[in-house]
């Protein structure tokens, strides 16, 4: 069993809901990204997502798209990201999954990309724009390298398509909490229906919900149904704001993550 799956199953046994923060690699620089991951581990984050900057991230709203654009302008590459992640003191804390566009995976080559990710001691990959007809090849290579693949399920994914996506997911399924791009929203995530539909296909596969989840209240609402809640734009926005104020973003983000993790842990206390 892959690490990601183990972490989710352990959390499930104790009733904890997991909070998965998202960081853009190299925002504002790769050494800060590594420090942010360390800080996340310190406040109890068990799985984190690192987005590999891409020139055309169509699933991302303005906050994350801008952070990726700036990282690219500063010269951040997948190779440099892998090197920085490999050099962490403890690459398993938190277990790290890379969010990466198929454009990058295809160009570097599936074999070469998976090998580099494994060498960087990543725990998994999320490929948000995979063509499902070629997902099998990537999943097989990831299985062989003990990397957990995750793909997206949308509010509109149903029937045979849902079954096919779920069958390709290994560590968890990434459930989009709403249509549209990444970004904060005011409402509470409504995922009960899709969670039930996924569980009907595979009752053991962990489900992490993302898109539009930013506050402790939204995290709690997502974790009513899902095993994990992914928080991205709110964190990236905070990093940008700290940087604009010429402050190190790590302390503010650590504090933010602590309150989000507490919201997730509260589910265990209640259960």
């Amino acid at each position, binding site marked *: 069993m892959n690490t990601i799956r183990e972490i989710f199953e352990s959390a499930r046994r104790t009733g904890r809901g997991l909070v998965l923060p998202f960081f853009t690699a190299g925002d504002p620089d790769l050494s800060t990204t590594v420090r942010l991951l360390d800080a996340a581990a310190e406040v109890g984050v068990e799985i984190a997502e690192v987005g590999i900057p*891409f*020139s*055309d*991230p*169509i*699933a*991302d*709203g*303005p906050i994350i*798209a*801008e952070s990726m*654009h700036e990282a*690219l302008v500063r010269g951040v*590459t*997948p*190779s440099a990201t892998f090197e920085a992640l490999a050099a962490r003191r403890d690459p398993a804390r938190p277990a790290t999954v890379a969010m990466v*566009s*198929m*454009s*990058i*995976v*295809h*160009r*570097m080559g599936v074999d070469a990309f998976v090998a580099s990710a494994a060498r960087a001691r990543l725990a998994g990959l999320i490929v*948000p*724009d*995979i*063509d*499902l*007809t*070629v997902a099998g090849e990537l999943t097989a290579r990831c299985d062989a390298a003990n990397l957990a693949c995750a*793909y*997206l*399920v*949308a*509010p*509109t*994914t*149903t029937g045979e*398509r849902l079954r096919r*996506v779920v069958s390709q997911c290994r560590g968890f399924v990434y459930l*989009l909490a709403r*249509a*549209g*791009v990444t970004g904060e929203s005011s409402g509470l995530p409504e995922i009960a229906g899709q969670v039930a539909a996924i569980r009907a296909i595979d009752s053991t596969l962990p489900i992490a919900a993302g898109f539009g989840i930013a506050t402790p209240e939204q995290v709690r609402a997502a974790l009513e149904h899902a095993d994990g809640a992914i928080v991205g734009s709110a964190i990236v926005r905070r990093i940008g704001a700290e940087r604009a104020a010429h402050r190190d973003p790590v302390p503010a983000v650590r504090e933010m993550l602590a309150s989000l993790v507490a919201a997730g842990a509260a589910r265990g206390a209640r259960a």
Partner: protein
Amino acid sequence: MTSALPVAGDQTLPGADADGRFGRFGGRYVPETLVAALDELAAAYAEARRDPSFRDEVERLLREFVGRPTQLTVATRLSHEIGGATIVLKREDLAHTGAHKINNTIGQALLAKRMGKTRIIAETGAGQHGVATATACAKFGLACEVYMGAEDVRRQALNVFRMRLMGATVHEVTTGSRTLKDATNEAMRDWMGSVGKTHYILGSVVGPHPFPTIVRDFQSVIGRECRSQCLERFGRLPDVVVACVGGGSNAAGIFAPFVADQSVKLVGVEAGGRGTAQGDHAAPLSFGQPGVLHGSLSYVLQDRFGQTADVHSCSAGLDYPGVGPEHSYWKDSGRVDYTYATDADALSAFQLLARTEGIIPALETSHAVHSAISIARTLPRDALVVINVSGRGDKDVQEVMRLLGAR
């Protein structure tokens, strides 16, 4: 009149396979949110394509509103000056709004209405597709929002005003490189959150399945007309058909009906820009390699990590790092020859066609004119070379004035 859409069961125009692939190219590399919308679009299009009343309506509008069929003009003085084959011009510049783009926007807008969509979005580079979309939306009373890179908004102020005159809202895109590829990103982002009531009219034979097939089909009226006009006028098929290729919609439109005619040589002309180094041209079929951009696998200009490269062309309509997947398929299968013309080549051809034929072509078209002339020179007078004059050059005269003045 030539039928507006390929007739049902037309084996000369195979679409993509069930997975949306032309050979290994194409597909659907998109966030899952768009998949249901693409399925809905594919199903609605398949059904509309079979419906005689839909076909009749498209045909009526192409005739009464667009002014089809467009004429075939023998370029007598140009042919004489070149001293080779007889050059014939397919006059898409005479279509309403001055370019072939309207063939697609009329078809897709009608399809959107049929699907019950009330809002249309589109991306545009130079503004030609934006204007053609705004035109169709004004005609059908659909709300229209066009995404356009901030850089292009500045360069193409007149087209921005034309779109606004026809009631469209133009969104200035300030993300990324602020040009066509970023406008396309923004349109896709909008569509992810608005698929319920919104249709995205993609302007070229690019993007995820079924767009490359739909756009090609709506543009294939150019090739069907051209084929029957040649048979009627000359009693035979042309020897060569030449078209410029950016995303590749005018080329796909004129090539597709000739693909099964093995005697007809098909030539696509990319933008060679100012040099062969990455960043100096916009010619993915000539200098790129297969990669994923905007939802499909096709030849693309990328760096070694898959990041989309910067591109350059004097022609805003060709200034795009990708190309339609069916062109990639035609390239690899050898059915179509792809070459390129530089900025300087295009500028010369622009002036030559104006001087010899009284036709000012778009800068995009001028690339095809240049290559067609090179080919015509090597052929006897009884050979027929068709150029798809994809658009008129009024939009470019100011830019050409600037470029000629600078030289």
